[in-house]
């Protein structure tokens, strides 16, 4: 039962407790500052310079907004990259995620060989990236690939800039839907069976039961799935990078950042400007999402 003693503020704590509390506040704060805010602010500041990653801080020269001007005007891959990121987000949202949810529902209903399907759909999530790149190379290669061998076509799946984004999206969907399926399956298993029974007794069809009863009950999972989809789409990088380092029709903002910052190029200033743009776009989307989530609560 609750104690009658009134809480008298921090003075009530012993010296040791105070230290513990202080550490519990200070250490995570420092970590967040060091690992999140400092790099973020550092990138923003660096985006106004032309630093090449070599030499001391004092050698950094400010170039004002030149990096941003260059990106918008004379850097050909930038606008395609923005467009591709938006397409990526849309496909994940409207195709990959619903597909994953559908798989979860089917597996949950217990079709024959459930375990087999469950495992094979989830497998792509577990595979290493190098292996995934290799698997799809075997399928998509123009001269030696499975797809062209079966269909007898000569489509250049990875090289034709009109096709390769969609080819990559198929691979991304393959991976993403398995992940969503697992998340959603866990949620479905947690739904109280009596709810479904009640709906059945009331004469609701399977579809109605799902959309009117199960789906609303699963709100927490739905939000998680939404957030995961969102984050995964904005971070989309790895698959495209294994395919062709994000060039020739597969430009994404994240690959442009990497091309400029990592590696021999070392255009740290220019790359930071791209990263800042990516940060700004993500912030807008995160802001909208938070508004919606908060309002519903």
């Amino acid at each position, binding site marked *: 039962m609750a104690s009658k003693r009134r809480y008298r503020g921090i003075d009530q704590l012993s010296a040791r407790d105070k230290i513990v509390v202080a550490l519990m506040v200070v250490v995570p704060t420092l970590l967040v500052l060091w690992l999140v805010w400092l790099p973020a602010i550092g990138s923003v500041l660096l985006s106004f310079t032309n630093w090449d990653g070599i030499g001391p801080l004092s050698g950094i020269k400010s170039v004002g907004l030149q990096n941003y001007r260059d990106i918008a005007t004379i850097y*050909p891959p930038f606008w395609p990259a923005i467009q591709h990121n938006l397409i990526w987000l849309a496909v994940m949202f409207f195709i990959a995620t619903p597909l994953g949810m559908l798989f979860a529902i089917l597996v949950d209903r217990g079709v024959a060989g459930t375990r087999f399907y469950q495992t094979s759909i989830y497998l792509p999530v577990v595979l290493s990236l190098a292996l995934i790149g290799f698997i799809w190379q075997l399928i998509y290669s123009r001269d030696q690939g499975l797809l062209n061998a079966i269909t007898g076509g000569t489509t250049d799946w990875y090289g*034709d800039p009109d096709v390769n984004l969609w080819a990559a999206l198929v691979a991304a969907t393959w991976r993403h839907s398995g992940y969503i399926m697992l998340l959603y399956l866990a949620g479905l298993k947690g739904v109280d069976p009596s709810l479904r029974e009640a709906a059945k007794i009331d004469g609701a069809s399977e579809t109605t039961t799902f959309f009117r009863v199960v789906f609303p009950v699963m709100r927490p999972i739905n939000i998680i799935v939404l957030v995961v989809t969102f984050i995964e789409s904005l971070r989309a990088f790895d698959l495209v990078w294994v395919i*062709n380092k994000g060039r020739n029709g597969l430009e994404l903002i994240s690959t442009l950042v990497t091309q400029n910052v990592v*590696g021999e190029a*070392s255009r*740290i200033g220019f790359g930071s400007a791209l990263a800042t743009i990516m940060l700004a776009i993500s912030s807008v989307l995160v802001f909208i999402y938070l508004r919606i989530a908060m309002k519903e609560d």
Partner: protein
Amino acid sequence: MTRPSNEAEYLARMVPPSVRGVDRRTLLRGALGVGALLGAGGLAACGSSDGGGTGVPTGAVTGTVTVGSNQSDAVPKAAVQAYMDAFQKANSGTTVKINTVDHNSFQENINNYLQGSPDDVFTWFAGYRMQFFAEKGLAGDISDVWANITGMSDALKKASTGADGKQYFVPMTNYPWAVFYRKSVFQEKGYEVPKTLDDLNALGAQMKKDGLDPIAFGDKDGWPAMGTFDQINLRVNGYDFHVSLMAGKEDWTNPKVKKVFDTWAGILPLHQSDSLGRTWQEAAQSLQQKKSGMYVLGSFLAQQFTKGAEQDDLDFFGFPEIDSTIGTDAVEAPIDGYMMSARPKNEPAAKKLLQYISQPEAQLLALKADPSVIATNDKADTSGYTALQKKSAEFVKSAKSITQFMDRDTRPDFASTVMIPAIQSFIKNPKDIDGLCTSIQAQKKSIFGS
């Protein structure tokens, strides 16, 4: 960290990082987290840096000398081990410690590596990038080693020299870029090696009639097509223009550059189509399977051919003449070798090792593993060479001037972030040469101006 072996080394470590400078930058990188954020980071091994004596020791050297190697494939790795072991044997009391890093990671992390705690000696290439490191103070001056080097041509010495006139690089092996073909295919169909661009066009037309793709082509990775640009520019405009274009001294909107793209557009129909989805290995295999007739690539292409009869069937010729006033005496032959870091821990042993690397014995040990390259030292015994190696050696020797490769002859940021997308967009749409050159020029001005 290694344990300090003597008092001086111990005291050197007492210097706070802020004074030493190197570690402050490491700290800074951590703080900005750009590298860490993207998962590229610690490549450098642990170690401290302090100066040593100068001059190449004539007597015995002792201690441990560390070597950073990008030869990560099994066979070349064993070759590195072989000549390092031989060096160790010849200098008892010296231990060579090899840190092998994946080839691509090594190249991508080179900036961080050199600013952290690099090994005493490390693998690198000749050319603009080597000079850039020298200028930034990230490479050690080894002019005194060069004073004792014999058997290296002046061209090689020039390729090892920084902008300040001092030497920073020791060549080990090199290999030519040329037009490769299978002798059996040329014999069977009665093809002649083309001497001029017109010959090449005629030969290409004939090959098409015979159901072959005249020129194998793969540019999925972005860099192989740079080699074709280099070849055509060297034939259309010559060595001097090429070098100054690469150094950023010429405008890309210059009609001379447009002529290069125009010429290329003229022979592009001879190239294998859909090249942007094909790796160079796949393109090389099409040559190997006799589906295409020729391939403009470096001699490392031989790796896609099985050793023995199949490799013996491989032959090459220099890229045909385009302008008779320019000729064909410029050859692209990238040089691989070693450099010394700016502050090696064991300078005497490092210099002795570099000198050893310049000698025929070490180079021949390297060739044993990779027969697609040739030794740079003139005195190296060529009797064990394959036919392809012998021809490569003659071909390189006959050249009046030697270039490295686009991404070694110009700024790497320009090569990778501007030229790769630009050449790929040219391959997609060879019609808009004016627009392409204007776009390259605008980006070049921004990058070289900074």
